[in-house]
């Protein structure tokens, strides 16, 4: 992570992507986001903010209602229509519930061989590669004969990762990769993800509600609220000086162990409004402690600030966390 370095050319590009379910639930609203090759981009926000929908759109499981998503120089839709298997090899999704993402009726060995068969990869080569991956992930061969319920949560995570890596993907979308893992083993998994990025030039989109993980692992972070990206910034800059009031509030709710790092939590009133009937103007104005009259009527755009940061707020930097 070199501060001040220019961003690599985008490998993933969301341009004005919206997803509307049943004609009324705006799960994603005008999302524009670029992820550079080899970058690790974090996605934070509360439930209902659209993080998972964004992941699903990227891997082609959900169709955007409007806007385009490109991976490389072609859209996801085109690639899925023309060469679905090749596209799915490029981009792999790690699901939040690692144990549930493995079939309970298949041994781990069969689960890992299934994608090799589906994608008709050269058997011998793929098997050899799989052996290498298993070793790399610290999974011993006796795990192959077991069923998902016989392995630990941490092992299930690594099996899911192995299943993704055997496809030699360019991009990994990881939805809460450390959810359900004990804090004593989450570091090990994250180190592994970082090693793989370095060795294979992998690109990550990483969803997490663990702000410490986001701060340590990602280079950029996009903050989402009610289907919109409200801020997109270098992770260290976001944590040091959040520009959007929602970012400031969200980051302040992560109580630190170290008294020197503690800030006064900014306690927001109320809860996230419904995506069926989002507030007019700025979607955050109903809970924003520094909202002004303009915010209730004019929806702010996601506009660039200095230093490659983008923020969707009429009055950026107007809410700052207070230190103890």
């Amino acid at each position: 992570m070199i501060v001040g370095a220019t961003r690599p050319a985008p490998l993933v590009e969301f341009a004005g992507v919206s997803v509307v379910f049943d004609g009324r639930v705006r799960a994603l609203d005008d999302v524009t986001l670029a992820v550079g090759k080899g970058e690790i981009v974090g996605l934070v926000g509360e439930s209902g903010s659209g993080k998972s929908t964004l992941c699903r759109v990227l891997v082609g499981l959900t169709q955007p209602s409007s806007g385009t998503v490109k991976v490389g120089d072609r859209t996801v839709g085109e690639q899925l229509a023309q060469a679905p298997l090749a596209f799915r090899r490029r981009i792999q999704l790690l699901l939040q519930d690692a144990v549930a993402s493995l079939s309970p009726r298949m041994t781990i060995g069969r689960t890992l061989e299934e994608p090799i068969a589906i994608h008709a990869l050269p058997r011998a080569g793929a098997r050899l590669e799989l052996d290498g991956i298993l070793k790399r992930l610290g999974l011993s061969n006796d795990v192959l004969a077991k069923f998902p319920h016989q392995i630990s949560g941490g092992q299930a995570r690594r099996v899911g990762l192995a299943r993704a890596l055997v496809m030699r993907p360019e991009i990994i979308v990881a939805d809460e990769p450390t959810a359900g893992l004990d804090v004593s083993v989450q570091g090990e998994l994250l180190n592994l993800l970082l090693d793989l990025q370095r060795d294979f030039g992998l690109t990550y989109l990483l969803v997490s509600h663990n702000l410490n993980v986001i701060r340590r692992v990602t280079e950029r972070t996009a903050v989402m609220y009610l289907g919109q990206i409200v801020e997109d910034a270098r992770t260290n800059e976001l944590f040091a000086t959040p520009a959007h009031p929602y970012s400031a509030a969200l980051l302040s709710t992560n109580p630190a162990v170290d008294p020197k790092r503690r800030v006064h939590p900014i306690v927001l009133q109320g809860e996230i409004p419904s995506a069926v009937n989002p507030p007019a103007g700025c979607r955050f104005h109903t809970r924003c402690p520094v909202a002004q009259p303009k915010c209730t009527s004019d929806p702010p755009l996601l506009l660039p600030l200095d230093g490659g940061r983008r923020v969707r707020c009429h009055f950026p930097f107007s809410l700052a966390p207070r230190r103890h």
Partner: protein
Amino acid sequence: MSPNPLVSIRQLKLEALTARGTAHILRGIDLDIGKGRIVGVVGESGSGKSSLAACLLRLLPANVSRLDGEILFDGVDLVALREPAMNAYRGARIAMIFQDPMTALNPLFTVGTHLRDVLRRRHPGMARDEARRRSVAALSSVGFADAPLHVDSYPHQLSGGMRQRVMIAMALLVEPDLLLADEPTTALDATVEAQIVSLLENLRRTFSGSIVFISHHLGLVAQLCDDLCVMYGGTIVESGPVADVLGGPRHPYTRALLACELEDEAGGGRLVSIPGEVPDPVEMRDACVFAPRCPHVREACLAGMPALRDAGPGRRAACVRWEEVEFELSKPSQR
């Protein structure tokens, strides 16, 4: 800890029969809960923190094969009580807030019915009007803006945060001497969690009982609690005032757990984890439970399970070597 604790737990052991053999869920717990104190209990999954709460209420699963030791609650040993006598404590002197507010409320009854049931248990024969008046007041006190309206709501009409507020209101109506809160904010979104934490902080001014706050979030415990008790593998490895323990941990496990929090800035360095796995509860141990993963292990650690011993004012640690380890770590050559 405090000279005159509300609860004194001594050598509490809990075992259960499983398909793989006898599970040692609690391996001899010693803990004092001071009057009016908030005691944070932290530990990873399987460390026994929820089981400890279950023992205090004596609400244990059917496969429990052994419950031994003492839980002196205001001088009465809860372990030895017969069932009807124990029942008089539940929902009266001891109340509990559960982790998942979605399943803790009965979907068939209104919020008002939940609150009234709790009140009538505590004050048998309370008039309907009085119960309703106090229910509405309780909802207001936990932050319901439209309490008279919401008292007639059903649980499905409320969000997760509001349901957890109802749970807290129910617990407070009991006016318990001891409130058990098992991960009360884990199921909530971050900004809603902040609301509930701030509510709990404000309640400190009006609630005079003791609170056992179970959590896996060290930062939250640091913010909210007075005392801290760190559990590992069915044992307490360290206890003491929260700022002292987190500011200068004595037990190698506490130190390792703090390092795993990833609070420091990205420096390109490796992320910390504790090698190895949490102990298997089925395994019988006659040594320090943390020894297989401890970077400071010596032969002395394998000779019997270390007892909690003094580790500073109001502090105790279950490590035979904590002084030596502290000295070793203080030497510059070590790092």
